């Protein structure tokens, strides 16, 4: 690798050619503040907070985009640099609602942290303030354009990472606004509610729709029996909200905390993840052996399902009819569970904690009411659960370790790895292989489908069925590439896993945010750290195959009878329909 030598604040630094001044400064241990910059996602030099002096360069230059050259001399801490950064942030603040005390991002806001860091004590500029309407049109994401600082991280993640392009930069000058086309609400465009925009927003302009009060109200209602499920990926990130290092699994403390919120029964979505494997695995074998539509595509990611409905309706018949683990749990929580425990199903309030914003949308879909009620009554993101734990005054880190309730709290490592890209595929292969061959798998880890590579492929010999070809994509941008390849006939698979979010659910839009400066300072990708934690946990578990889950066996014996049976068909399976990408295309003729 060709190296370049430069001097930053009198310190000599050597970095690979093509590095930016910001990266070089980081290597030298020199901290340059940033705002719009987001490692690997947004590098556009828009906010001018990271400006530095560079000898022989005109004026100040943004270090996040400026490439290093041999012999370059950089100064990051001069009076001019400091004054300029302050002025830039003051200008942003001069058109920013000063609602910090009641803002959902208070103490967790990158703009607030920056103002503090730069020592801003007054705002010298006054002018007009933006007055845009809030977008509360949909069940998942709330947009407040007045808080937006036009950093365009959300636009970058929506367009370049996800390939959706629901958000863009509209208009010009003071009227500039980040919004869908024609400033339409998100509900009228092709937004899939994945929440990646929410994850990268440095301020309070993008957030999940708050469902916390609904849950508090149910807890306080003596008539209600509140059951709660926690998704696999939540335990791999919740600890970050309480200062624990990224990649800490907090399952048992999380259960203890939820119990202390006043929830009646705490169950695990991993249980219905195991159930999904039983249903989807059998669906796969059925399609494989009886000439059904292939490749079978997973449908547990509601962002991906909506993307498929709006962007690739030609693949709708490929989607597994098996509902997501959240919705399978929801359907059973108001049928099997009350029947088994002698509770009135009408009194059950079913909550799920998800790493996801799209799950808030999924629970409200008309297909998700097969129990005779709304199957899931409220969805909290990992962040919302953390906020409720804080509001309850619990000292999370000193809580005891507690276990899930029975029977829907029993799960396997296969259910757990659903939370990581490739996990559903790996869990399915563990079960399909053993069910078909009747042999015990010697090595449970299918490493080919692990890791953060955008598209992963593997072939598995499953005698007597033959060689099964599988593919895994995470992040809708990668999904798009894979689907185009399949459409063009360039690749053929039997089974495909698609997750809307990069990294799978561990990188979901409802997970704790990892800020721009944090992403810069971490040596590893935070998604790798979370994934590793999940795989380590799987390895330490006694049961690691869905079909060996005793509670699942009992569920079939007592209630469902058999996978793909009549009851399963009614409660656990559904179909999806094509939806127009933009409302205008549905209403008007060109």
């Amino acid at each position: 690798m060709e190296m370049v030598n430069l001097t930053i604040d009198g310190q000599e630094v050597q970095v690979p050619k093509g590095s930016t001044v910001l990266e070089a400064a980081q290597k030298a241990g020199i901290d340059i503040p940033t705002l719009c910059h987001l490692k690997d996602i947004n590098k556009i030099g828009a906010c001018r907070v990271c400006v530095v002096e560079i000898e022989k360069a005109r004026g100040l230059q943004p270090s996040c985009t400026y490439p290093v050259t041999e012999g370059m001399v950089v100064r990051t801490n001069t009076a001019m640099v400091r004054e300029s950064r302050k002025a830039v942030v003051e200008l942003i603040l001069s058109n920013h609602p000063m609602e910090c005390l009641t803002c959902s991002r208070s103490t967790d806001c990158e703009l607030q942290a920056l103002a503090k860091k730069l020592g801003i004590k007054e705002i010298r500029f006054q002018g007009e303030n933006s007055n845009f309407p809030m977008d509360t049109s949909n069940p998942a994401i709330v947009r407040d354009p007045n808080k937006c600082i036009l950093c365009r991280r959300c636009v970058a993640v929506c367009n370049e990472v996800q390939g959706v392009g629901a958000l863009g930069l509209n208009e010009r000058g003071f009227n500039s606004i980040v919004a869908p086309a024609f400033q339409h609400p998100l509900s009228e465009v092709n937004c899939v509610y994945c929440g990646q925009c929410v994850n990268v927003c440095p301020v309070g302009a993008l957030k999940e729709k708050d469902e916390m009060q609904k849950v508090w109200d149910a807890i306080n209602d003596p008539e209600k029996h509140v059951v709660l499920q926690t998704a696999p990926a939540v335990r791999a990130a919740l600890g970050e909200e309480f200062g624990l290092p990224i990649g800490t699994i907090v399952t048992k403390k999380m259960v203890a905390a939820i119990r202390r919120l006043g929830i009646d029964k705490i169950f695990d979505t991993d249980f219905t993840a195991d159930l999904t494997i039983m249903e989807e695995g059998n669906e796969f074998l059925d399609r494989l052996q009886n000439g059904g539509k292939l490749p079978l595509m997973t449908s547990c990611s509601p962002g991906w399902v909506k993307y498929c409905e709006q962007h690739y309706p030609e693949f709708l018949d490929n989607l597994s009819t098996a509902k997501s683990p959240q919705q399978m749990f929801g359907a059973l929580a108001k049928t099997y569970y009350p029947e088994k425990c002698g509770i009135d199903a009408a009194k059950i309030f079913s909550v799920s904690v998800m790493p996801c914003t799209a799950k808030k949308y999924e629970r409200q879909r008309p297909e998700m009411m097969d129990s005779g009620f709304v199957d899931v009554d409220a969805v909290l993101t990992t962040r919302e659960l953390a906020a409720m734990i804080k509001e309850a005054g619990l000292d999370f880190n000193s809580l005891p370790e507690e276990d899930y309730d029975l029977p829907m709290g029993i799960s396997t490592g296969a259910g757990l790895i659903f939370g990581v890209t490739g996990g559903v595929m790996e869990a399915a292969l563990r079960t399909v292989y053993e069910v078909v061959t009747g042999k015990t798998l010697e090595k449970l880890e299918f490493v080919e489908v692990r890791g953060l590579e955008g598209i992963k492929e593997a072939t598995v010999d499953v005698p007597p069925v033959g060689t099964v070809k599988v593919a895994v994509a995470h992040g809708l941008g990668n999904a798009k590439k894979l689907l185009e390849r399949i459409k063009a006939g360039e690749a053929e698979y039997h089974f495909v896993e698609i997750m809307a979010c990069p990294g799978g659910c561990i990188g979901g839009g409802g997970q704790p945010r990892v800020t721009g400066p944090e992403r810069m300072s971490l040596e590893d990708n935070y998604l790798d750290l979370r994934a590793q934690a999940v795989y380590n946990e799987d390895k330490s578990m006694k049961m690691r195959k869905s079909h060996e889950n005793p509670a699942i066996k009992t569920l079939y014996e007592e209630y469902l009878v058999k996978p793909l049976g009549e009851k399963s068909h009614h409660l656990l399976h559904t179909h999806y329909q094509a939806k127009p990408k933009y409302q205008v295309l549905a209403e008007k003729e060109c």
Partner: protein
Amino acid sequence: MSCQCQGKTGEKESKCEIIDRVVDKYQGQEGSMIPVLHEVQQAIGYLPEDVQAYVAEKMGVPLSEVYGVVSFYALFTTEPIGKYKISICLGTACYVKGSGRILEEFEKKLGIKVGETTEDGLFTLEACRCLGACGLAPVLVVNENVHGRLKITDVPEIIEKYRAMSREEAS
């Protein structure tokens, strides 16, 4: 997406056909968004939402990208504009020589405000910045035709000239 409007508009070439033709012409060319939108606007007159959505689908880009470009450049309009677009220069030289009063006279005679279009779809009134013809101040352009050294009394004459032109074309 397939076009659903063929034969319904009664025009020689439907809106979808126009977009298909223009987008196909620029197929495979980098940075062709602006020329495509420009030609589509020239052919259709303006860029309403359904047209932008069809352009986006046809070009394989998100609608937000198309709208971002359309809403950024003053050249593009999402509202129908009249057959004759009257752009009156309000640049310094023209303004000093009374173009503001000329504009007011047009507003009075046409019964519309600046930025609006007459009900018969014939005229759109716009104010613009320096046209680079200060020697002709006060100056205006109607589509591509320049009218200079204007007096208030020229206003009804100009309006009548284009009304007559339109009538002639119709017959």
